[in-house]
């Protein structure tokens, strides 16, 4: 059974995202430990990419800061090895297909298994293209996470029925980033997901307040927050672990 299911075993899951290496990997480690200590159920570790086409300005900025600081895939693997000495909750990588493909999918995903990464989110890898990565993921017991969007319509059942780990429901059109309002009616979408999926689903994109998180988690199994956390890291830099921890606690308590 997938380790990711543990994240959803104790009720609604809170899933924070962080870009690795922004502003440096030591800070990322402290933030991850702080998030785990304050109630995060699963952590998304972003491996920066030079041209993150699914991200809004906030996470684009984090990617640029991290790459400018010299972070690489290998350095992030090393960081995860250190984290896994004491961080037990499920962790997944979020990055772009080329980061995995270029490293060598077998080598990348094999390393994920070795260092204790439980899943992989590739926002530019839709259902039709996942074949070449999925077979390798299955062999290494790394869940390749499926995304479902407000525009998925007739594709929802197809994607949900083959999903592993958990389903990432994209709350709104557009790229990642804080939104004052999430207007999409997700209840109909989630109903079709639940009818077809054997794994939990969590909602992400645009969530920043405890109220939004509670509302999104109420219709699904959890809430994913990225840009709001990355903004805290941008603001507090190397001192971000504590404010991010406080934020995670506030969000988790709201679910």
């Amino acid at each position, binding site marked *: 059974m997938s380790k990711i299911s543990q994240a959803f075993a104790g009720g609604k899951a809170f899933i924070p995202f962080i870009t690795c290496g922004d502003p440096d990997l030591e800070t990322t480690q402290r933030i991850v430990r702080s998030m785990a200590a304050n109630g995060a159920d699963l952590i998304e570790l972003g491996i920066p990419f*030079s*041209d993150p*086409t699914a991200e809004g300005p906030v996470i684009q900025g984090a990617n640029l800061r991290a790459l400018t600081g010299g972070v*690489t895939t290998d350095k992030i693997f090393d960081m995860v090895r250190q984290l896994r000495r004491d961080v037990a909750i499920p962790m997944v990588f979020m990055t772009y297909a080329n980061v995995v493909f270029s490293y060598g999918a077998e080598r990348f995903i094999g390393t994920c298994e070795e260092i204790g990464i439980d899943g992989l989110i590739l926002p530019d890898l839709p*259902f039709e293209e996942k074949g070449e990565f999925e077979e390798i993921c299955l062999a290494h017991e790394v869940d390749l996470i499926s*995304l479902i969007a*407000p*525009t998925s319509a007739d594709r929802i059942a197809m994607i949900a029925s083959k999903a592993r780990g958990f389903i990432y429901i994209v709350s709104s*059109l557009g790229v990642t980033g804080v939104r004052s309002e999430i207007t999409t009616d997700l209840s109909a979408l989630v109903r079709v997901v639940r009818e077809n999926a054997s794994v939990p689903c969590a909602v992400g994109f645009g969530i920043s307040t405890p109220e939004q998180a509670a509302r999104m988690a109420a219709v699904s199994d959890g809430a994913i927050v990225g840009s709001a956390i990355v903004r805290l890291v941008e603001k507090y830099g190397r001192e971000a672990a504590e404010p991010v921890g406080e934020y995670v606690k506030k969000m988790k308590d709201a679910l």
Partner: protein
Amino acid sequence: MTNSKGRFGVHGGQYIPETLMNAVIELENAYNFYKEDPEFNRELTTLFNEYAGRPSRLYYASKMTKDLGGAKIYLKREDLNHTGSHKINNVLGQALLAKKMGKTRLIAETGAGQHGVATATAAALLGMECVVFMGEEDTRRQALNVYRMRLLGADVISVKTGTATLKDAVSEAMREWTSRIDDTHYCLGSVMGPHPFPTIVRDFQAVISREIRQQMMEKEGRLPDVVMACVGGGSNAMGTFYHFIEEENVKLIGCEAAGRGIDTFETAATISTGRLGIFHGMKSYFCQDDYGQIAPVYSISAGLDYPGIGPEHAWLHDTGRAEYVPVTDEEAVKAFEYLSRTEGIIPAIESAHAVAHAMKIAAAYEKDKIIVITISGRGDKDCAAIARYRGEDIHE
């Protein structure tokens, strides 16, 4: 196994966010319907002939031929099209298709501004809204085209992210499309991106090689020995190659922008320096580092300043059917000046890359051989930049 579409060998595919999948499926279905629709084809042909000025001339460059002392040189004059480049072929096709699909708004990326100007033009003609994304660096070196787009009624968004050039304009246009799909068509400007764009753009640009074949038969009674064009994403080259791919005796040559040289980091020659990757919706060759981070490429030509190449070109390279050669800034600038003085034709700096390679190889061919160079655009837009390159500061 999944049913990945739009493959050219291992290249191509649809590597895009789920949010866009139904949009590209809808586009593919609409395209498959309208490409067979006589009414659509009639309308498009009328636009090509009456509005864009097709067919474009196939001009025998007698002075250049004599000067180089080898093969006969013909120039396919896409620079004479309305808006000044081959880009109008694809844009008229896509804009008409978008209109039939009920879209009211076109968005586009642009490098040199030629595709942006063409899209703004089609939007004005067909009564559609238009937003063009252009790297901030390119808005500076192609200021005249920014003004033309605004004059035509388009919004030009200056993209400041990344290297602030063509790749960043593509990324930003993709982001915009993700946020507004219902009324918006992304009018992609080259044979790249996710399926079905490489096929759609190729089909609309294939008019170039269809005309070359016919004009060549009329003028020489036979097919050419070489057809060549510059390659960034590769739309004018794919249009130039397409109807010759099955003709094994016709050599196909694509000329990449080598910038300051393929042994430097300041280059955009994807086939020479790139490797297989996944970016901007497609699997193809990309300039990238060991970890798959896309390289900040460079060329004097804003239109060729792109770290990738269309998937069908990648495949033509793999199979050996086409040859891809690097051409430096310096060689392209010399060719820009050469064609201006020799034939009285000022080519776009992009097209000058193809002229430069022809200058290298023409003499090695017998006098009864025929080389066709596609002049993809006209060079007015480049005059200020080339003057700067030569140390002269002119104010437009």
